[in-house]
């Protein structure tokens, strides 16, 4: 089994570099932090003692001029998802690892890519050049990952079945995908490299560590039969909205979400689906993200029930600043289950249906509905044009 591992070291920092180049390039030492804990540190910051997992106060004590960026996990996930999509256009079986690591099963690709280096180049091109991605190819996920770690930025490293054992031999046992306690015990036994493990009989490792010992032995030999498990494909409906000027009013944010829900429900009705989950997302003008996943007890297609859940989440939301962009995704879609509707419509419902029909006809005639809904945005603002806005009305 030939497997490729695409590795983007310090993925979050790479994303920040791509999204906020002016801020990131100026910084001599940089860290991405979430909840006062360092997630990733630039090489220059790492040289000054800043480490992932360190408390921010501690990191700033090591490096007072450290520039700290607030982590945007959703943005990183989105970029990583796009990277996986790009890889799937080349190799059909792609497995996401931790953020910035992806495996691809290369079996069956020889007719498309007769030369392995052309395939390697195509996979490397799945990540933007600024990401400095590395590619490892080997006879399993573990050797491919180790090869990717050793490859130079923007280059690939290929291990064959014949060379893999000698190539892995100098690698540290710390690279093994086993619990920290096992690694500590290996070190206590004087087994510091994978080469040390290869010299031992398989039975000795099995006797010491049980089934994990056998796996360690196989990995040191460059055998990794763990298959590439492609990510499950989820059908989603995603809609987004943006504001001309960032909005601080919760009412305006809720109105916009209501409008997005209507838009998403139209797409969902066309596909005759019901949603099991809703993902709400709000991005502030500074790029901070608020996200909330709502999981419903049963798949919903009913607007009133969906809105009730979303509204409640928005009322309780602590959005970290004026909102510039909103997103709503309906996921875990399932076929619609029939629901019993009432036979007799109230006069109010009939009136509303007539009104909506008139609006639909207006839309059909003019291409877009010429009506808008006036919403208060920042009624307290001293800038008159910020006080209210027109939200396009979609029948």
């Amino acid at each position, binding site marked *: 089994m030939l497997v490729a591992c695409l590795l983007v070291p310090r993925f979050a920092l790479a994303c920040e570099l791509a999204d906020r180049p002016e801020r990131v390039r100026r910084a001599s030492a940089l860290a991405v932090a979430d909840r006062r804990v360092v997630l990733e540190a630039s090489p220059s910051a790492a040289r000054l003692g800043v480490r992932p997992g360190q408390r921010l106060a501690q990191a700033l004590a090591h490096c007072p001029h450290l520039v700290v960026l607030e982590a945007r996990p959703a943005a990183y996930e989105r970029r990583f998802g*796009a*990277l996986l999509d790009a890889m799937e256009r080349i190799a059909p079986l792609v497995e996401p690892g931790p953020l910035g690591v992806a495996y691809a099963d290369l079996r069956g690709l020889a007719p498309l890519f007769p030369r392995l280096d052309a395939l390697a180049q195509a996979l490397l091109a799945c990540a*933007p050049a600024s990401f400095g991605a590395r590619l490892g190819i080997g006879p399993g996920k573990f050797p491919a990952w180790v090869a990717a770690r050793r490859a130079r930025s923007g280059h690939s490293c290929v291990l064959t079945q014949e060379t893999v054992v000698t190539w892995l031999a100098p690698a540290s046992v710390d690279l093994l995908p086993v619990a920290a306690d096992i690694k500590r015990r290996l070190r206590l036994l004087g087994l510091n490299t994978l080469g040390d493990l290869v010299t031992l009989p398989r039975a000795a490792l099995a006797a010491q560590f049980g089934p994990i010992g056998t796996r360690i032995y196989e990995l040191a030999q460059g055998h990794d039969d763990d298959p590439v498990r492609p990510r499950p494909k989820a059908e989603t409906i995603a809609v987004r909205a943006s504001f001309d000027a960032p909005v601080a009013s919760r009412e305006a944010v809720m109105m916009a979400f209501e409008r997005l829900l209507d838009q998403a429900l139209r797409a969902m009705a066309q596909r005759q689906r019901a949603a099991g989950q809703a993902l709400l997302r709000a991005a502030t003008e500074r790029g901070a993200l608020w996200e909330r996943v709502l999981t419903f007890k049963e798949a919903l297609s009913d607007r009133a029930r969906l809105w009730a859940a979303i509204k409640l989440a928005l009322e309780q939301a602590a959005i970290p600043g004026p909102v510039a962009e909103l997103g709503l995704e309906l996921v875990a879609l399932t076929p619609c289950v029939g629901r019993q509707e009432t036979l007799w419509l109230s006069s109010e419902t009939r009136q509303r249906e007539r009104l909506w029909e008139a609006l639909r006809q207006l839309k059909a005639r003019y291409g877009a509905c010429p009506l*808008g809904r006036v*919403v208060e945005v920042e009624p307290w603002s001293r*800038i*008159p044009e910020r006080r209210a806005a*027109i939200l396009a009305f979609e029948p």
Partner: protein
Amino acid sequence: MVEDSGAQGSHPRLRALNQPQPVRVEADAEGRPLAVVLRSRRRRVAGVQETWRVEEEWWRERAVSRQYWRLVLEDGQVVTVFEDLVEGGWWRQRV
């Protein structure tokens, strides 16, 4: 290259209401309006009802700095205009 993954869906917008409209204003050296041109007709300023300054959003790249004037014109009409102190120019707006 990585493409934008959020491909689905359109981008509805909130359109601001009461956007300022450009207006021609003649002012003295100190920036006090002397005349306003409305519908191609010059109208002299008969009096100033009120003037105030709006300094907002100085933390953003495009700060807002405006000097507002509520003016009574020679024909009795009351208009509110402001001078954009960041980018220059005069604007009319309902307040």
